[in-house]
């Protein structure tokens, strides 16, 4: 908030008044360079006792212009700046007091424990349902990135689950499932089975076949 200004002092006082507790903070700053100085809005984060929710209050931003014509002008500018800052802080303190008054009126005493800054709770988006094409695209990406037996087994597992197969089913079991009635799907399942079980010298060709089968399946996407 006070960038480009040197902080010389910070005085805080709390006083009990008839209308509630008053909190005041006075800071002393000095500017060492001439020109405009932007002061960011002052903010206050507190729990609103009226509804128990975390809230944030803030003032408007402020721009000070520091002149070059001598210490008098500089002193006047600093004084203006200080007043503005004090005004901002007083506004914030007033808001805090108002919140405290409301709390007192409603007689809802709260334990004075330091609460961590509340994390804003955003409404969670429902998890996106992965389509068959997503699964096939992932399997293709896995096989293209890593042309090994392990990758082939991983890709096969993904497509197996996509076809509704449970753990321990064989290719014949999966091909009997209604989900495997599509010819491109069947070709993909057979090609992946080969890549998972063929001998090492045939692995590259088997993975090529599996990639082609996956591509054909993806091309058949509506």
């Amino acid at each position, binding site marked *: 908030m006070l960038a480009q200004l040197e902080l010389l002092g910070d005085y805080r006082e709390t006083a009990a008044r008839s209308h509630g507790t008053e909190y005041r903070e006075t800071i002393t700053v000095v500017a060492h360079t001439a020109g405009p100085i932007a002061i960011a809005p002052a903010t206050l984060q507190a729990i609103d006792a009226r509804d128990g929710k975390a809230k944030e209050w803030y003032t408007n931003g402020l721009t000070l212009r520091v002149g070059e014509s001598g210490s008098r002008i500089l002193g006047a500018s600093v004084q203006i700046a200080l007043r503005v800052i004090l005004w901002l802080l007083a506004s914030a303190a007033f808001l805090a007091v108002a919140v405290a008054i409301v709390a007192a009126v409603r007689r809802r005493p709260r334990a004075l424990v330091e609460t961590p800054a509340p994390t804003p709770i955003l409404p969670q988006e429902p998890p996106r349902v992965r389509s068959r094409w997503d699964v096939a695209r992932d399997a293709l990406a896995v096989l293209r990135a890593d042309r090994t037996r392990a990758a082939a*087994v991983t890709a096969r597992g993904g497509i197996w689950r996509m076809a509704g197969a449970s*753990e*321990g*089913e*064989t*290719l*014949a079991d999966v091909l009997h499932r209604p989900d495997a009635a599509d010819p491109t799907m069947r070709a993909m399942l057979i090609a992946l*089975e*080969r890549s*998972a*079980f*063929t*001998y090492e010298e*045939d692995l590259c060709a088997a993975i090529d076949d599996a990639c082609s089968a996956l591509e054909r399946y993806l091309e058949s996407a509506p």
Partner: protein
Amino acid sequence: MTVARQPAELGAALAQTIVGQEGVIEALLLALLANGHVLLEGPPGLAKTLACRSLAAGLEGEFKRIQFTPDLLPSDIVGTRIFDQRDSAFATVLGPIFANVVLADEINRAPAKVQSALLEAMQERQVTIGPQTYALPDPFVVMATMNPLDSEGTYALPIAQMDRFLMKVNVGYPSRAEELRILDRFAVADTHPVRAVASLDDVRAWRAAAHAVHIDEKLKRYIVELVATTRQAEGVSVQSVAGTTFRVAELVDYGASPRATLAIAFLARGRALLAGRDFALPDDVRAIAAHALRHRIGFNYRIVAEGVDADRAIEAIIASVPAP
């Protein structure tokens, strides 16, 4: 991998003659590819003999049938030495076991001594007659049959002996549609004998190709797990005919031997080759596992007493092991 003629062609030729019984045809081919022997169990009249004869014909191989009876002697199978008076010397007469495809019909009707002679020949692939040892022809496949219906006066094969068979296949009755086709096909005297579609050299090439079929590490572990589960089937349950659930472990005296592990691997390789693949899949293992385990698991009396089908118990064991 280049094979002169595909083994599936032989299967198609056999199917031209034998209606239905795809399981038997596949078993014969698998035994041929895995260089093993088959035990066929089923009622009479289910084309077991025809299947074996057709297999030999399809290969241009020699076929011999031995009917096992209680008075059969080992020399009736392997051969004997007879004294030739003209030469004043012993001459060796080779027995019917010297053929490419041997049908040992009703093997359980012969006493243990004869069974032992046959099984020893199956294992060693050679026969010793007098001082001379004779190698059996290659390929050499024994198809032994057992009739489950008529068990009086039979000599049950011990499990240790049965272990020498690569697989045991239960031969079931044909469906109505298949029986109609049988009626049409065999209505005339000519039964369309199988023409030769492959040579014995082809069979040897197929065997080499089957031996080279790749079995992935995941699949090997699956096979070992399957066989191990036959020995420790605590978590597996099966229902009896009456619908009562039993733990399979309570019904098993002893599980399958490591020979079953080897047999499953051989058969899976053969099945992959029949399908035109040079790598085996979990489906190959699952399809043939029961054939390799059926005669190697020792069930106790409870399986009969409680009315549990042994094949269902084996299926439950196989289903309990997740495929890779």
